[in-house]
């Protein structure tokens, strides 16, 4: 194991600063006592964190968002893994067309998708249902899952799979016990990206969400229609905190590193 040099660490520090800068700003603003966004803030107050409690619909939307993101990203990864293996392993006619189709949701402005789905769902009677929401989210997050699994599927030593087969494993067992662990880094990062994108999607969801099941970003989006106040930032800050806590717990339980990178890495 070699170490990062000074130059690398300097680069890393700059990168992290770049990534964190706006987040830190958002978090700092969350503690303002003022009724509006201001920086630098003069005082310190938890007023906007307490304000979250006045909006039970945010909490409900948060829960719905979690469910939606978890379900759609899990289903998407379930569809993406075999598809990615097909694309990585085989050369067949229509391979590129298929890849393009799978990636197309990335390339259509989400407002167009939103309206197309709204029209489509209202014709097949799925309008406003949670199922419709899940289906549409599967579509928009699948490309992420697919691309990352694809990146991990190239270059796997197939002889390792052959070894499993020679020991009597059928295709499914070989996949579950050997191939999947080998591409695990891609699968986990693919799932995470899918989750995050579903959790954060708003432009499309505004059209398909029903009044009774709405996601947190849609709620926030509608909330800030006429007024951006520090509530947005305090909710964001709480999200960051929750994510951090969740990740730390996961890290303690499983090791984040292992989760992302597979256990085989030294």
């Amino acid at each position, binding site marked *: 194991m070699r170490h990062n040099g000074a130059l690398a660490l300097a680069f890393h520090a700059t990168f992290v600063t770049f990534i964190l800068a706006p987040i830190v700003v958002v978090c700092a603003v969350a503690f303002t006592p003022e009724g*509006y966004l201001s920086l630098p803030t003069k005082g310190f107050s938890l007023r906007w964190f307490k304000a979250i409690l006045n909006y039970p619909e945010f909490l409900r939307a948060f829960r719905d968002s979690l469910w939606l993101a978890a379900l759609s990203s899990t289903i998407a990864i379930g569809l993406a893994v075999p598809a990615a293996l097909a694309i990585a392993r085989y050369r067949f006619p229509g391979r590129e067309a298929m890849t393009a189709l799978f990636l197309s949701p990335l390339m259509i402005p989400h407002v167009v998708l939103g309206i197309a789905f709204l029209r489509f769902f209202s*014709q097949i009677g799925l309008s406003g249902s949670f199922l419709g929401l899940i289906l549409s989210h599967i579509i928009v997050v699948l490309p992420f899952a697919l691309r990352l699994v694809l990146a991990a599927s190239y270059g796997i030593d197939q002889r390792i799979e052959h070894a499993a087969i020679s020991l009597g494993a059928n295709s499914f067992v070989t996949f579950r016990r050997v191939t999947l662990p080998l591409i695990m880094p891609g699968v986990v990062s693919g799932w995470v990206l899918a989750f995050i994108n579903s959790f954060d999607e708003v432009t499309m969801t505004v059209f398909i969400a029903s009044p009774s099941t709405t996601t947190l970003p849609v709620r926030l989006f509608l909330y800030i229609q006429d007024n951006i106040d520090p509530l947005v930032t305090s909710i964001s800050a709480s999200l960051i905190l929750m994510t951090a806590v969740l990740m730390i717990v996961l890290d303690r339980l499983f090791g984040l590193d292992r989760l992302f990178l597979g256990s085989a890495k030294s």
Partner: protein
Amino acid sequence: QQKVMYFASYGGSFEQAVRKEIIPPFEAKHGVKIEYVAGNSTDTLAKLQAQRGNQQIDVIVVDDGPAYQAVALGFCGDLEPADVYKDVYPIVKFKSNKAIGVGLVATGLMYNKKAFEENKWPAPTSWADLKDPKYKKKLVVPPLNNTYGVHAVIAAAALNGGGETNIEPGFQAFKNEIGPNVLAYEPSPAKMTELFQNGQAVIAVWGSGRAKVLADTGFPAEFVYPKEGGIALGTAACTIAGSKNNKEAQAFVQYLVSPEVQRVMAKSAGFGPVNQTVTLSPDEQKGIPYGEQAKTLRAVDWDVVNQHREDWNKRWTREVER
């Protein structure tokens, strides 16, 4: 199984007020559950268009411009006659009788009082102030596809003798004199707010209701009616043609113009009442076009505007927003 009626209108503080104070009594009285479908006016129109022929929404409340469009596109059904409509100012009634105004705000100028004081600038008084070079990159105007934007262009045209029927002077003014001052053409209230809050913008063309909401957060925002006159912006309701809950929908629109609801909307959303029987105390009037103030407002002829809208939009995006 309880009946569910879908009501589509603005999100944000308006939604809060409607959910808390307006919907519950109606639900109790009519035994119906109301689902609030939030979105701004154009979102709502888009949803109507998407579900054409299979409408889910029963009642909408949108800006008057989009309301005219909704009527024109045939989304709105006829309003059934009712006593309460007699009390409504005739000016907010639609000739087609497919929609009716439920609130009135004014388009005028909003500025940051604190910033003006720091710069020792006098408060703006006229639409012509938009051309003042000292506001370079500090002015925000909503774009033409937004109702406030339409008002701004018409007001600018009026300064040089134009109007709805002769918009040319408006475009000229925006291209040559106002344009350089404009920091952004910003339709989103949220972003408008943000630009004011972080100090980049100090003056804007905006609605009285929005200004009131912003001022209520404690921000030093001040609204002025320009001396040439503010412009009236109505908020209109209509029932959706083909609604499965037409009875309740009709009742809901009637309910919206009833004095008790009008009062609530004045308080929480800064809507000037359209029902003549509503009286507001001087304190309640603050920031709301009401009484004499309301009479100075200039109305826009939407039929003319909508006729030219397509061309204007094109010109706007190509000549002004570049």
